[in-house]
């Protein structure tokens, strides 16, 4: 196999991504390509091979990008090197999407033959066209009786302005048409350009940590080549290292002598600190640097902050260790210790977005066996005190006393939503409800309109995205970039359980919505907190003023299972199960509070 894997002439390289609306079949088509090119045996084929983390597979989303090399013997008798670059599929990870696309010359646009063009088809196609990629339209699921490929072709031409007469008809399920697709990639996607003799210029798409070899970076080489033993430099961060090996994924790591111009593969950096290797940075020669780095590098900044507390305080050190282990492959994770009267010792952790937060929490619980409470997410507020000092506040409990606050600024986003015109009204209303301001509206085609607006980040992280999805039946796609800080009239809303303030339940809200929020939160908590042996009043307060109240009534009876014919084991199992349930709750004072109560604020608008 090594003999076939020498550096390939750029005319025989094709770098591409597959983009699609969710569930239109991106992953199955990737799998069929790997099969047809004999990159993996059919029998080794776990469905959706490119998504390797358990959580990715369960949720059907791609979190980290991945690049796989396949070799294709085309009908013209030539052998081609294809690099299939997977892109993350969620709004939290738009930055990584843009890096992945920057590494490609082409994109296969997959459209479901039964569903036609949908919101994310439009937004992904737009991203690909903005990146100047050659688009190969492919209409999938043609094996289904309800497939109507001719109409879908028309939609692609009308809605996206992409010629679709020769769109490839495929079935990821049966494999039909995959060969035609591979041929189309050879002919429609441009080969990479670049100068093998120029100084090295390689873009980092992704990185991962290997205990023995340090950080391994996935790169696309634009100029020059990389060999083991090269002295290299990170252009943005400045660190230098000795290249300890290169290779490509097929899909397992396959070492190579060299990564040549136009190729995609991995570089073993030997660096022990993952923070030194950043997606979007450019690798070049230490002694002969390229003139300029690949464009568009910026550091992914945490936008959402939440407290993570072990239910059992004895797990605090384990949580710290686990976070450190995760950071090795996820350098964007940051945290500082946090103490809560209610929850004890924990950490305030910064995330790229809500999905990132959920994924990290789930990995901590599943891979490290921790039982965690996550508190309501918060953003980074700029609080200006009366003495003129400005403090960054990422946890409501750190908010200074009202009398010492002059004003508070909160981060805004510049956001845009692409949606069919039918849903325009619903989106505009949602934006207004979430303190957003519409700034512009552009018709992209008859079937899609782009709405630009400014919105506080705090609104977006609560429930904006979920509501956007539900109010537009999943049609809307959202993209955003960080905007400016603006002054808002904000107050801290406290929650009291059985008369005791629970600091971990506090959050910062706009003053004019405090009453509504307090009322819905008290009602929500009443549903979430199980009935206890005594009555539990729940109160919402601003300062000393109670503004909302609900009550969890005392439980009168618990389950009495009949011991049929003396089957006592069964009764005991029931008791053990009940005890397990309690273990997953946190005692606050004398009240047993389930984990989800601390995220109740995310759910107040569910009804």
């Amino acid at each position, binding site marked *: 196999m090594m003999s076939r894997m020498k550096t390939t002439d750029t005319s025989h390289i094709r770098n591409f991504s597959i983009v699609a609306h969710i569930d239109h079949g991106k992953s199955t088509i990737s799998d069929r390509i790997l099969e047809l090119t004999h990159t993996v045996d059919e029998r080794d084929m776990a469905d959706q091979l490119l998504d390797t983390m358990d959580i990715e597979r369960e949720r059907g989303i791609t979190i980290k990008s991945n690049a796989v090399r396949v070799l294709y013997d085309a009908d013209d008798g030539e052998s081609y090197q294809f690099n299939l670059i997977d892109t993350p599929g969620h709004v939290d990870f738009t930055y990584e999407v843009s890096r992945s696309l920057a590494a490609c010359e082409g994109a296969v646009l997959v459209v479901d033959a039964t569903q036609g063009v949908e919101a994310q088809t439009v937004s992904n196609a737009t991203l690909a066209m903005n990146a100047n990629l050659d688009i190969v339209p492919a209409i999938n699921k043609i094996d289904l009786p309800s497939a109507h490929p001719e109409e879908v072709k028309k939609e692609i031409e009308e809605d996206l302005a992409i010629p679709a007469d020769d769109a490839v008809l495929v079935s990821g399920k049966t494999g039909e048409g995959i060969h035609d697709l591979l041929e189309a990639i050879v002919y429609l996607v441009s080969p990479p350009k670049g100068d093998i003799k120029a100084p090295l210029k390689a873009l980092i798409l992704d990185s991962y940590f290997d205990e023995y070899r340090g950080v391994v970076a996935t790169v696309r080489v634009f100029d020059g080549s990389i060999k083991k033993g090269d002295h290299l430099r990170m252009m943005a961060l400045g660190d230098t290292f000795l290249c300890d090996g290169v290779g490509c994924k097929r899909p397992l790591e396959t070492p190579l002598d060299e990564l040549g111009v136009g190729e995609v593969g991995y570089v073993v950096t030997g660096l022990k600190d993952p923070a030194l290797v950043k997606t979007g940075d450019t690798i070049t020669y230490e002694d002969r640097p390229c003139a300029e780095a690949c464009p568009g590098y910026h550091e992914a900044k945490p936008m959402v902050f939440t407290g993570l507390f072990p239910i059992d305080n004895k797990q605090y050190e384990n949580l710290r260790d686990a976070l450190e282990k995760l950071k090795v492959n996820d350098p964007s994770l940051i945290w500082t210790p946090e103490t809560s009267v209610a929850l004890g010792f924990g950490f305030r952790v910064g995330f790229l977005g809500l999905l990132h937060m959920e994924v990290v929490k789930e990995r901590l619980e599943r891979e490290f066996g921790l039982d965690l409470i996550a508190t309501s997410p918060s953003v980074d507020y700029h609080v200006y005190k009366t003495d003129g000092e400005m403090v960054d506040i990422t946890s409501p409990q750190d908010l200074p006393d009202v009398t010492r606050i002059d004003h508070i600024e909160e981060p805004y986003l510049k956001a845009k939503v692409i949606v069919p015109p039918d849903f325009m009204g619903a989106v505009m209303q949602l934006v207004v409800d979430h303190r957003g301001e519409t700034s512009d509206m552009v018709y992209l085609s008859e079937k899609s309109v782009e709405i630009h607006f400014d919105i506080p980040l705090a609104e977006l992280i609560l429930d904006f995205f979920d509501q956007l999805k539900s109010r537009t039946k999943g049609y809307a796609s959202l993209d955003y970039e960080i905007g400016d800080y603006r002054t808002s009239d904000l107050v801290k809303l406290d929650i009291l359980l059985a008369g005791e303030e629970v600091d971990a339940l506090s959050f910062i809200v706009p003053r004019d919505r405090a009453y509504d929020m307090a009322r819905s939160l008290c009602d929500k908590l009443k549903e979430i907190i199980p009935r206890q042996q005594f009555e539990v009043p729940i109160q919402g307060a601003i300062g000393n003023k109670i503004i909302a109240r609900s009550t969890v009534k005392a439980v009168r009876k618990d389950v009495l299972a009949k011991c049929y*014919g003396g089957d*006592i084991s069964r009764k005991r199992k029931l008791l053990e199960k009940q005890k397990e349930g309690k273990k997953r709750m946190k005692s606050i004072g004398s009240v047993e509070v389930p984990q989800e109560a601390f995220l109740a604020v995310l759910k107040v608008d569910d009804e």
Partner: protein
Amino acid sequence: MPSSVSGGFGSEWCARLSASGADALYLHIPFCARKCAYCDFASWATARGDALCRHYAEALERQVEEVSHLGLLTECETAYIGGGTPTFLGEALGGLVRCATRCAPRVHELTCEANPDSLSDAVLSDVAAAGCTRLSIGVQSLCDAELFELGRLHDAARARERVSAAVASGLDVSCDLMCAIPLQMADSWQATLEGVASLGVGHVSVYPLQIEDGTALARRVGDEQPSWNSPDTQASCMEQAQSVLESFGYRRYEVASYARLSEKECSHNKMYWTGRPYLGLGTGAASMLTAEGYKRLLEACPQLGPLPEGMARARLKVISGREEIARGASLLSLAFEEEFLTERQAVAEDLMLGARLACGLDAGLVACAHDVLGPSVDGTLDHLVREGYLDDALAPTQRGWLLGNELYGELWDLAGDTGTVTRRSA
């Protein structure tokens, strides 16, 4: 009534942990004319007169004889034939009763469960003649609409008539009732309680309906807990039952059991609550044996495997199917689920079960618990009294009865390590 063991003699209770036989015998009949909507127990709808029933009963008789030859039934005082619907066996039930009295000659209480629809005069006289002393009749309700919802085959009139006939036959009669069931209202529950009490039965059992996963009822109600089965409804029903039945002269001697006179209490069920070993045969039947008793059973059932080291109590459950048993399975070919408890666990379990009884925790048991579990017993008992689950005599309060799981859970936790050793027979 305080137990016969009293006065703080821990050693006497502890002696129970080393009895060598079974004090009670349970036989399970897994046949019914129809499966009730709420039932998740080992029972299957079967065609009346199916030869399977007769073969099953005969096989069970041979197994009872086998355990009797092992000497396990020498001291046995009570027997209980439950189901399912034992009366569904018809004539074969009489044979089984005769076998039990023959093989366990010291039995003074022998109960057969019965359903109003299959308790014919013939079956009644047959089992009485065979040595049955007590009938436990599954009345459940005296409201036709409620009975229909539960999927019962009888109506209220049939239940009244059959219970009266049973009482007239001179046997001790108990009625099982169910509360927090579909359509039930406070007044219909009142009518059921008063109706049953007026029939002159000596014993009544009252259980709130549990909606068990996988039953027809669970599918019908879906995920939401219906208001007719809410914990509040259950609590009200249990309180109502106590007040109505007490007004008719019944005394609540166990969380779910009422008797008119102390001699009408169910001796067999009390075995379960007082740490007395029992042997169960038939599909799904449960046994509790001491280490000694287990070793004795092992002689006939080598498939059980040796008693794991350090274990004081075995809880077994027959998992062989009814067809397998009907094909003539002997003790040797029965499959069991096995669970083993240490001495600490056995004593904690006795405390947990003892807290179901109105007479409270037996002084001998508490002394034994001190010996085995150490001073943590005092802390837990103090806490339970302080929290109002137990009174000063260590008997359950009203609160303790309603919130039994809190009470039982805390007592069971006295075992310390509550993980038990489980396995399946070879």
